[in-house]
């Protein structure tokens, strides 16, 4: 009966010991604004459109899960507010006209600078 009383008390102190042991380890926070993690080349950040090697085959528009983020008529426009950055278009584009950039700071105050538009002659 005795250790049925002292056992829980021992466990309580063990809990305190664990939190103390963890407090001695160094902290793991990434100081974001000053130090940034470097992304490898597979990271799916902002999608960049290169006009030169685009042959306007509209395959990227057909492969994109959210149906009309990429519109190709007089303009080539990508609507970043709607894009889910899944990388399908970059993968299936035959001419590598779209590349992935490791830029993820895309927050903005108004919606229309989230839409990328480029003149297609």
């Amino acid at each position: 009966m005795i250790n049925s009383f002292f056992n829980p008390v021992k466990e309580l102190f063990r809990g305190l010991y664990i939190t103390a042991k963890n407090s001695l380890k160094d902290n793991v926070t990434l100081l974001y604004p000053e130090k940034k993690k470097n992304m490898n080349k597979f990271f799916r950040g902002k999608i960049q459109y290169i006009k030169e090697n685009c042959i306007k085959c509209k395959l990227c528009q057909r492969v994109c899960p959210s149906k009309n983020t990429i519109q190709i008529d007089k303009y080539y426009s990508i609507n970043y507010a709607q894009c889910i950055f899944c990388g399908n278009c970059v993968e299936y584009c035959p001419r590598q006209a779209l590349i992935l950039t490791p830029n993820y700071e895309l927050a903005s105050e108004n919606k229309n600078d989230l839409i990328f538009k480029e003149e297609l002659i």
Partner: protein
Amino acid sequence: MYLFQEILLKYNFSDWFIFIAGLVFYFILITIFIIITVLILVLFERKYLAMFTRRIGPNRTGIRGCLQTIADSFKLLFKENIKPANAEQFLYFISPLIVFIPVILLWLIIPFTSESANYQSQISSFLFLAVLSIPVFGVLTAGCSSMSKYSILGGIRSCIQIISSEIPVSLVLVSVVIFTGTLDLNNIINFQSGIFLNWNIFPNILGFVIFFICSLIMMNRTPFDFPESESELVAGYHCEYSGMKFAMLFLAEYALTFVICTYMTALFMGGYNSPVGFYLADLFNLNNGFDYILKNIEQLFWISIKTFLLIMLIMWIRASYPRFRFDKTLELCWYILIPLAVFNLCVEIFIKYLRGIL
């Protein structure tokens, strides 16, 4: 307070005016002192908990985040205070005051230094307990008047909890009073002067443990923080409050923590006696009244160091334990703590008798 009244005597005001001016001055002094300690306490808690979980606490404001709680309180000051439609306006408005004013009164009773200007009274330790039970009504009215189911449950829970934890506390107080012989806090502290071996905690270790657990219940700290437990009742009794009223409730809770810790140090760990028996100020023994202030400052230093040690222990517990179940706490109070307190009472009487013989 008495110091201020002597200065007033020189300008020969009428005596009832001196009495009231003294009280008002001391009241303002104490509220400023409370607000400063509470701001430091809130910031200390966030940094201290951050240290436990291997992250950095607030460090954007001030040099290393020291002005963080000042920013919080000013923001709460400027916020719009909302009056919920179906809440009873008068009770809704008055209850933060009912919670906050007694906490300030509690500070008047605690003797911070031997010649401190607190309210000297023969039964100050008992008076402390009496005033401590007034915030219960504030919490209850705050909960029930804001008409949301969560705050009603929170209000009822916290008032049951505080009432059921006051009985073991008073029993332990009786055991301490029997041991020291007086009800007055100053005399209790003088009884414990000398090296730290004759503090009250060593003959009365069981009493200290019971008092510590009950104070955790009274302060709504972590193993027993039922009223504002995030996961169950969304925000407990201060669910409907915003802006200044919420700030008052928030400050009252932290001030209560600090006051109960000072009360514990006064009862068990020799309030302002230095652990090594003599004061640094005696060495200088300058006799032009300056050593009198130096002695007070050192005593103030000792009592705040001991309270901070206790608060660090409480916050350490907050970082590492889940929450009790509500009926288990009541069970703990009624079935375990009260018999233990009575047993502790008998042990104290026996030790007192033994000490009497030797």
